[in-house]
């Protein structure tokens, strides 16, 4: 029995109808394409009225196949599939032709657009006659979740889920959770003490019955798919037994090896070879830095072992691989600071009193190396003038074109702290001041009132090459003041560089491990920048915080909570629907060559040793088609992408070059053609 195909051409207001003659397309389809029983055009097919037309036609006209020519299937495929299902038609007997993104939006030539729209409709209508009903399957969702990164975004996500009663594995690379927020002194614009609002959350994570904390650990491998991921985590050897150590800190006190701390203290302070990064660290268990430890380097010392009252030191400890099973993964891997030596004209690491923003955070912090005193590199002199340079590495075509979002406000915060703690003059050298969230502009107004000087212009250089008596012994900030319209040289004692926020050095690698992509700037790509900001293109993988793009603490917390809510929703539902678009092996034809086994990017193909045939695990298969194309025996079929479906689609797309007389080339002839041309 011939199929009865319904074709629906959408105007999308004027989005499509402005360029494509939709009436002509609908009329053409009904007159030319075989088996088209109904062909209509309508203003908005996705509206409930539009969907109703389809549903009515399925019922009254006995349609067995539906084609909608409208926007991208990414937007409304689900909508129309649902409508078909509602009217009793299997949703996989529906096909979408994209005549908006791929036709009307990319040309102004109405004739060409109408012609291409016809071909797109023909391709879909030819293909759909070969489509078969498919049934999606359901898999259960493991209620445990993996959160990668223990900064504020990861902490928030962890607590939201754990407080709902779901188990969370929180993996953190550093010896303690807390992230960058733990390094800050104050937070803008409220000037809350950063530690005071963060550490309660940290200890809550550390003590939560539903949280397994894996610090000093890194994500190594992810397999499986949404609902059922298998994860391997490398738990690096701390050389301190976590279950024995009581965190008394004698080991760090007595350790003879001191070195510059490029981690928590941002290169501004020191730590020992055995250390906990900061007093409120969670967990309190220290780690031994084997690169610095005298025992590991020269087989001498072991002072910590001798003095540890609990006997917790273990020089023999090895890295451990921990295997976890989780239903969903939230990446909250954060950021790192731009390397300010890449702008040598600002003198960072060459001129002693030029500081990076993170160094200055540590300087301001009461628990930091200077006990919160703002002093020059000599450790005692209070500066009489301080310059804060904005956009160091941000909004700079040579480095990062993006705005790092938080630096303007952090610069205002620094300005406030300097004015509060010293008698210094404070200059902000900015390109534009961006203070666009709740209470932020008010904070800027406050700093104006406090007497911070704002100078608009991109700083050309910071130099110690003095030219005038007043400049001797000073750092001179040279710039064009674009409001005054003249060059200025501002002599100061201290310079703070507001470096850009950058993706972590291994962000791309972590993305690859989890099967998600990074954008051009290196941040993780969300599923939709506006409407789906914490999901990714891989089901079950979510992102939160700065790893998705520069943002401040409130936004990071919001994303952490949002990602947790998405995961919580999936756990509450209990199952996920798996698309039935998977590959299957015809065991009669499989020769057992195993070529497909190695090619499958999702490790979804298993080999049955007994029968000597390959078999696809549909829970893991993503329907990518790699095995289908590679199988030398043609034994593998990709559901919804079978050879006859694809060839029919090609035939439709080539409608205008068919042999004259309306005779359709047989699919077989095309196959022969493809074989002949190799």
């Amino acid at each position, binding site marked *: 029995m011939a199929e009865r195909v319904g074709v629906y051409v959408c105007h999308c207001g004027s989005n499509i109808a402005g360029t494509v003659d939709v009436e002509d397309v609908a009329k053409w389809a009904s007159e030319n394409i075989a088996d088209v029983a109904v062909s209509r055009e309508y203003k908005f097919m996705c509206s409930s009225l539009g969907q109703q037309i389809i549903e009515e036609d399925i019922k009254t006209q006995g349609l067995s196949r539906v084609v909608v020519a409208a926007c991208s299937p990414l937007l409304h495929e689900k909508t129309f599939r649902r409508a078909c299902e509602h009217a009793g038609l299997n949703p996989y007997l529906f096909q979408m032709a994209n005549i908006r993104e791929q036709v009307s939006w990319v040309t102004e030539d109405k004739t060409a657009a109408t012609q291409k729209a016809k071909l797109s409709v023909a391709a879909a209508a030819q293909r759909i006659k070969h489509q078969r009903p498919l049934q999606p399957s359901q898999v259960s969702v493991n209620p445990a979740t993996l959160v990668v990164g223990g900064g504020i975004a990861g902490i928030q996500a962890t607590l939201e889920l754990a407080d709902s009663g779901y188990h969370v594995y929180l993996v953190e690379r550093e010896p303690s959770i807390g992230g960058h927020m733990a390094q800050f002194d104050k937070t803008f614009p409220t000037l809350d003490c950063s530690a005071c609002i963060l550490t309660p959350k940290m200890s809550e994570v550390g003590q939560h019955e539903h949280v397994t904390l894996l610090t000093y650990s890194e994500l190594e491998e992810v397999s499986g798919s949404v609902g059922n991921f298998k994860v391997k985590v490398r738990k690096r050897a701390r050389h301190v037994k976590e279950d024995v150590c009581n965190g008394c800190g004698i080991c760090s006190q007595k350790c003879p090896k001191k070195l510059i701390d490029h981690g928590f203290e941002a290169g501004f302070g020191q730590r020992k070879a055995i250390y906990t990064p900061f007093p409120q660290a969670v967990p309190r268990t220290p780690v031994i830095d084997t690169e610095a430890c005298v025992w590991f380097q020269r087989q001498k010392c072991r002072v910590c072992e001798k003095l540890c009252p609990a006997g917790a030191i273990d020089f023999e400890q090895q890295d451990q691989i921990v295997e976890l099973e989780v239903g969903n993964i939230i990446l909250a891997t954060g950021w790192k600071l731009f390397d300010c030596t890449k702008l040598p004209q600002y003198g960072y690491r*060459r001129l002693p009193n030029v500081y990076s923003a993170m160094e200055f955070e540590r300087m301001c912090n009461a628990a930091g190396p200077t006990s919160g005193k703002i002093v020059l590199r000599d450790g005692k002199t209070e500066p009489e003038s301080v310059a804060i340079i904005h956009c160091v590495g941000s909004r700079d075509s040579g480095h990062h074109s993006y705005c790092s979002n938080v630096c303007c406000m952090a610069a205002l915060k620094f300005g406030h702290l300097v004015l509060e703690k010293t008698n210094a003059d404070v200059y902000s050298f900015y390109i534009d001041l961006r203070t666009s969230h709740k209470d932020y502009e008010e904070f800027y107004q406050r700093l104006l009132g406090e007497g911070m000087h704002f100078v608009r212009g991109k700083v050309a250089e910071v130099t110690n090459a003095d*030219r005038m008596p007043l400049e001797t012994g000073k750092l001179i900030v040279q710039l064009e003041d674009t409001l005054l319209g003249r060059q200025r040289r501002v002599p100061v004692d201290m310079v703070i560089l507001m470096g850009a926020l950058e993706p972590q050095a291994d962000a791309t690698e972590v993305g690859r491990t989890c099967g998600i992509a990074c954008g051009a700037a290196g941040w993780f790509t969300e599923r939709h920048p506006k409407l789906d900001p914490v999901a990714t293109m891989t089901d079950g993988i979510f992102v939160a915080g700065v790893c998705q793009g520069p943002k401040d603490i409130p936004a990071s917390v919001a994303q952490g909570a949002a990602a947790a809510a998405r995961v919580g929703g999936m756990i509450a539902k209990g199952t996920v629907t798996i698309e039935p678009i998977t590959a299957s092996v015809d065991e009669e034809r499989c020769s057992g060559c195993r070529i497909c086994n190695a090619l499958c990017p999702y490790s979804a193909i298993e080999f049955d040793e007994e029968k000597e045939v390959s078999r696809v695990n549909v829970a893991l298969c993503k329907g990518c088609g790699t095995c289908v194309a590679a199988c030398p025996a043609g034994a593998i079929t990709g559901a919804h992408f079978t050879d006859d479906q694809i060839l029919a689609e090609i035939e439709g797309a080539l409608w205008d070059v068919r042999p004259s007389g309306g005779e359709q080339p047989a699919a077989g002839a095309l196959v022969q053609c493809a074989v002949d041309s190799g």
Partner: protein
Amino acid sequence: MKCAYYPGCSLESSSAAYDVSVREVADMLRIELLEIDDWNCCGATEYFSQDELTAAAVVARNLALVDPQLDQLVAPCAACYLNLKKTDHLMAENPKLCEKVNQALAAGGLHHRPGRVRVRHLLDVIHTDVGEAAVRDKVVRPLSGVRVAPYYGCQVVRPFTDFDNPEYPMKLDELFTWLGAEVVDYPAKAYCCGGHMTQISESQAFELIRRLLQCAASRNADLIACMCPMCQLNLDAYQGQVNGHFRSNFSLPIVFFTQLLGVAFGIEAKRLGFGKEIVPAETVIRDRLGLPELSNVPQT
């Protein structure tokens, strides 16, 4: 390695010391410099602001004259280097200009295809191609004790940034480290020397020169090493007038970096063009190195 060599006008006259020292040093480092036959002036800094097409054609003639067997061209003068590079770049970017330039060259039976010849500064060749090991290997008389202020100027590092940081270049600093010199951290290293401003506004020019001299002097530099004939001329020949203008008493020898390379390589001072500078350099170097006569040092 073999490279075409474009000395440029300055190196034939005011900066003859640069030319001879370049040839000596290149010889020592086995860089074979083959001078372009019948080369002409690059138009210096002014021509391009007058008439782009003519200026480009004048420069392109030199590029077209490069031996077809050679694909690299070395120009020690900063202005020549920039003009040659700029012309090649303009011709590559702008097909219409390229066509017109080639129409002009055709009158002399010449043609230039942009990108055929890579224009390079000698510092780049020595730093990148010869490299640290080979340079250090040639040093027989380390410049220990000589405090050198490396001066890059504008045109070698800007706007083309192929081989060094345009804001705070370091390659010349590194080269002098290889020679054993005490390299002064010279923050004015990429400032402008004023170019031809001495001819237009003396007081402006003198201030630009003074800031360079003062910055080096306040860091106790023994001398300034430069890479550009214009820079050398301004800092050396106008030093007396600058002193008069500001009542200062700078006495800083200004040499070409290749002259110091030659000293470190043990080449006789007179073969390196010493003595042509106005503020004498030879005595400073001799004192610092504790050598009675530079020329008495044995050759390798």
